[in-house]
């Protein structure tokens, strides 16, 4: 569905006009509510900048903060923390973990589908925002009904995203914040070197029609549309989006080894089966064992949406192991001590 439908534009203009009347201050150039996430990405891809950022998130243990540095030049965008992450021309995405080499996680050969129109689920409004990292911003507020889910602060002059704040289900408490603290735009940044020795771990596209409807349904609850199916090593990754948030569903054959899961998770029920939930700086992870293997959902969406989407998977796919599988496991457990 095209972003720039007349209805979307009318709604955006009406939203801006209403917000301006209420706030008394016009939004700057370059700010629209049509697809704020995509527009911010395009602006960042063209930018030349250097700065420091704060990443703050809340989990069961409290509030966490990390500081990272960011630079962008010649169409590349790099983030430096304990890990190095880079977006390079040609849609390349690379990650470097400390003590290890670079991994190429997305390559030009892979085409990503467009994300769905967020206006089908969210309402957005644009007003003049506060100063962030010394720069005037436009504030794009993303709501679902009456609840504020996100506030995006984009640079009024260039459209670069300067701050992204995600709120809890009540819309009152920020649970995740990514913000520039210092920023120099149009900085004379040396051209970023794209590593040539990265290990190719980019996915291979898979035709969704070759998978069962249980493994890659076309849609999940709450407006998540399938936008891609990929094979990454021994796993299948199904990518979903609702236009604002993304959710990846990973599936691999086998039996979940609970003992080897990272500690620090919260035990939950997922589709009637035991599962684990983790919080990371960018969102949530849910892991569980289903009928056809081990599943994991990774997303930046609020946890309630993630769980709702997972629960909406078609029955018969990622459910409890089948009776035959359970019977085989019991028989193996009985025989194992005798064959050891």
């Amino acid at each position, binding site marked *: 569905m095209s972003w720039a439908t007349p209805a979307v534009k009318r709604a955006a203009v009406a939203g801006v006009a209403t917000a301006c009347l209420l706030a008394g201050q016009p939004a700057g150039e370059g700010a629209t509510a049509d697809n704020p996430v*995509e527009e911010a990405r395009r602006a960042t891809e063209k930018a030349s900048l250097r700065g420091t950022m704060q990443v703050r998130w809340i989990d069961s243990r409290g509030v966490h903060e990390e500081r990272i540095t*960011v630079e962008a030049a010649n169409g590349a965008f790099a983030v430096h923390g304990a890990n190095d992450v880079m977006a390079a021309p040609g849609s390349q995405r690379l990650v470097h973990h400390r003590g290890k080499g670079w991994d190429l996680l997305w390559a030009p050969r892979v085409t990503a589908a467009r994300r769905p129109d967020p206006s089908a689920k969210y309402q957005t409004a644009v007003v003049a925002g506060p100063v962030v990292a010394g720069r005037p911003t436009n504030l794009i507020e993303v709501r679902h009904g009456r609840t504020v889910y996100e506030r995006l602060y984009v640079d009024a002059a260039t459209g670069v995203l300067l701050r992204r704040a995600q709120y809890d289900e009540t819309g009152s408490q920020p649970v995740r914040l990514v913000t520039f603290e210092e920023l120099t735009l149009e900085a004379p940044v040396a051209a970023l070197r794209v590593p040539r020795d990265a290990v190719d771990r980019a996915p291979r596209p898979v035709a969704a029609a070759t998978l069962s409807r249980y493994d890659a349904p076309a849609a999940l609850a709450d407006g998540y549309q399938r936008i891609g199916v990929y094979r990454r090593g021994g796993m299948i990754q199904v990518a979903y989006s609702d236009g604002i948030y993304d959710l990846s569903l990973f599936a691999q054959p086998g*039996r979940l080894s609970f003992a080897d899961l990272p*500690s*620090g998770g919260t035990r939950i029920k997922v589709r009637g089966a035991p599962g684990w939930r983790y919080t990371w700086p960018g969102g949530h992870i849910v892991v569980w064992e289903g009928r056809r293997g081990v599943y994991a959902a990774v997303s930046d969406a609020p946890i309630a949406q993630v769980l709702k989407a997972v629960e909406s998977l078609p029955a018969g796919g990622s459910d409890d192991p089948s009776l035959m599988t359970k019977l085989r496991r019991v028989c193996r457990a009985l*025989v194992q001590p005798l064959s050891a």
Partner: protein
Amino acid sequence: MSDAGAPTRSPTGGGHLGDLLSALVDGELSPAQERAARSHLESCPGCRRELEEVTSARHLVRSLPDVAVPFGFERRLLRAGRYRRAGLAALAATAAASIALLGVASPREEPVSPQVPRLVDAHVSTASVNGDLVGNLAPAAVPVTFVP
């Protein structure tokens, strides 16, 4: 305490006594269950009617006349018992063999522990291609660790 006119909660947790009625008539309930069942009956006309039917059926069956056993019936019955024991032994042997076969011959499922940090990397790289660069990639620079 139940509302006036509404049946008390059945010991089974459901609406009515169901199979417990038969057990009540045969004296197979525990004292606590029997008290709960009788308390339910005091306020549930439906279960009282069903109790009467179960009790009537029981009396009807017990009132049937004895039947003269045909000649050789006892011997035939005992022989059937021996066959049954032999059959049970054969069944047990077959079950054991099936368990052994399923346990040994079934393909082993590999234990899998998802590499959570790698899943996060894969997700953010995918999400950032058509999505937000800053919001997706900045958190990925922070190592994914989980502390109990």
